[in-house]
């Protein structure tokens, strides 16, 4: 006697594969299959690991596809000239430059005269991380953007770890069922299970000995300084987590070279 197949509750809802967005970097796209729409993705790594290069490639791909991008820049470190060199249509980019100064929240008591505002309402100071989180909330609620990027790359890890997990859950829920890609640039992953894709990029120190093998990166060793030029970075990306590929992706690393705008 055969027992009927029991369908687990998690499989009852037939969920189609999420649409993905290619970054335009062949090696990375072959590794990840693209970043999923309607989901949170994290791009992590230390300084000079290639995070911003991946971001610019992604923004270039989105704007070439006539979509709009929003960049929440917690450290005000976005370089328009690098973006233009990467092919980003800056007119389709909404750049939100968080202030390094603490911003006093607006008076909700509707008072006009300054003295009335001080009665019974204490304004609170919010730092750049909180500004970035609030701005991201507003962008996800407003909608209309194909890509929303939150750049926390220069925020100290200690400060970024204090972001409550509820914020990540809220972002995941807000972006779900929307066509937007929500990407976070960080030093290390913070969103835990809220992220559908977690990419870890490596700094070039892992690829070079102390004497700096220059061949892989265009960094000429035995030439005078004025004859050298930075050709680019050699980037290694590792997929730490991918909801589409399961817990153990078959292939987990990819290596490619980025080129500086002036490299031939």
């Amino acid at each position: 006697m055969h027992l009927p197949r029991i369908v687990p509750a998690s499989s009852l809802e037939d969920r189609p594969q999420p649409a993905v967005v290619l970054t335009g970097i062949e090696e990375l796209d072959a590794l990840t299959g693209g970043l999923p729409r309607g989901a949170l993705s994290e791009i992590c790594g230390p300084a000079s690991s290639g995070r911003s290069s991946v971001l610019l490639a992604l923004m270039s791909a989105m704007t070439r596809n006539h979509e709009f991008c929003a960049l929440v820049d917690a450290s005000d470190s976005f370089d328009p000239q690098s973006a233009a060199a990467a092919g980003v249509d800056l007119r389709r980019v909404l750049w939100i430059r968080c202030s390094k100064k603490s911003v006093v929240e607006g008076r909700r008591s509707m008072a006009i005269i300054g003295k009335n505002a001080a009665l019974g309402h204490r304004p609170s100071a919010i730092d750049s991380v909180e500004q970035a989180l609030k701005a991201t909330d507003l962008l996800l609620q407003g909608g209309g953007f194909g890509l929303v990027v939150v750049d926390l790359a220069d925020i100290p890890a200690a400060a970024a770890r204090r972001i409550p997990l509820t914020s990540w859950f809220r972002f995941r829920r807000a972006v779900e069922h929307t066509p937007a890609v929500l990407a976070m640039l960080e030093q290390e992953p913070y969103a835990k299970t809220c992220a559908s894709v977690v990419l870890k990029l490596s700094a070039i120190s892992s690829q070079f000995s102390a004497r700096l093998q220059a061949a892989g990166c265009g960094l000429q060793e035995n030439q005078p300084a004025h004859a050298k030029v930075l050709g680019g970075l050699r980037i290694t990306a590792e997929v730490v987590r991918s909801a589409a590929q399961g817990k153990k992706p078959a292939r987990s690393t990819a290596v490619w070279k980025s080129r500086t705008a002036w490299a031939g």
Partner: protein
Amino acid sequence: MFAAIYIPDFPVEAIVRAEPPLREHAVAVIEGMPPLVHVVAVNEKAADAGVEPGMTKLQAEERLSARERSSEREAAAHAALLDCACGFSPRVEDTAADTVLLDVGGLERIFGPPAKLARDIARRCSELGLEANVAVASNADTAMLAARGFPGVTVIPPGKEAERLGELAVDVLCGARAPACAESQTGEGASATQSLELLDTLERWGVRNLRALAALPEVALSERLGQEGLRLQKLARGATPRPLVVAEPPLRFEEAMELEYPVDLLEPLSFLLNRMLEQLCARLAARALATNEIRLKFVLEITEACQIAELSNCGIEENDATNNSAIPQFGNSAVFTRTLRLPVPMLDAKVFLKLIQLDLQANPPQAPVTKIWVAAEPAEPRRAQDGLFVPAAPDPERLELTIARINKVVVPPDEKNCRFPGDSSRNQQSFSDNQKCISEPRVGSPEILDTHRRDAFRMQPFSGAGAVARSAKRVARVSEPGTRVEDPRHSVTALRVFRPPLVVTITLRDARPAHFACPDRPAWRGSIVWCAGPWRSSGEWWTEQVWSRAEWDIAVQNEEGVAVYRVFRDEIAGKWFVEGSYD
């Protein structure tokens, strides 16, 4: 066919339009210099209470509370009346403050039969806050008399003019003056006085209604009352076909309100602004227009002389008749102005109100408000057709609200007065010449400037729809001459910029950087394992913003690994800075 719109008790209606709850109460409007203040207009309820025009203020206030006559509200009501009329016909005569005439000949296919047209006009007037009498007849003067004499909607078929007008009292002829082209300015006043005298004469003769006037013999009437008498008789018979004196009214959409007492809270101010914005939007909709600029002026109450200096520091102008010619003089007061510029034409009063609220919360006036003036710049409504295969752009209204809310979050208090300096961008407060807006906007789209100076860009207002309309192709941009990236398959190495650049300490060895340390970032120190440079550049030597620098790209071995930076030596200041890190 012609239609006439008449607003009975116009001064009262103008006040009630701005304060709709008053419509259920007895209202009397007073005017004049004390002690000669008298009642000039009353509504029906006030008339039932025994108040009538000509009474003194004291007599009227025994029965009800009277309101001062407001020329601003009457001007706004008259403008709304014109907007309503122009929504039905392009040929409109501005006959009087309370009367407009329209040429509705040939409009049956658009608006239906005359009765339906008249009802639609009355309903549109009601939407604009005016209760009007509407009449349709074969000639303009008959329609005007019918609108003045009969309440509600009246349609007089052709040939029935004398019969229908006959039951009206001769008083309705008061104010029915000759066409403006036949009169000088002094002649107009003389004609009105003459008409009043003639009406008195008719009253003494026992001629009470227009039927009796129409029945008088023409020759005898002309002998006793002259040409004016004949003209009145023709009006009574409905036999004065004349062309309309069409006037092209200026497209001015303004609403003003003088407050009974100064308001110092934003919530009641928002309530008043909401009503005024709804009126403006209704008037724009009547003309099939939208707006891309909302101007706001508050007249503030100044109680102490020292507050004037404080108000000046906040960018508020002293009232100056030459600068504020659009609004009346207010004596010793200050004017607070805000301008809301929109990226695309819109027509949503709720969105406008929210944007103004957010702006006032960020930039509040520093004194109570005694008068409000709102104006909208008319513009053609936007027309957008989405493609089937083009991704949707952000909704302009929602985008504008989102950006305003984000501005409130990220803009520090000392930058809140400045948004997009130097150009006619949104939310820019008007400043006098000695106050310059110097801070950089924080939300928008970057635009690279045509200069060799590094990190030279300016922030432009972000308008998703504008970007879609301008170009659907990828625009190739260059960061420096000869550095165009042709192949998008290669990722470009990005630079993360430090704003402002951080001071660093560079130790040189053999004229090359050998050691790197950043006082502001203790973790950023180490030996320089690779360097390339220097690349020298300079510029703007003919200005005060002269710059000269020598750039190096360096790779630093620190505790976390190798990081690649761009550093430069400022040749003028003699210091080293780190401009950014390659990432």
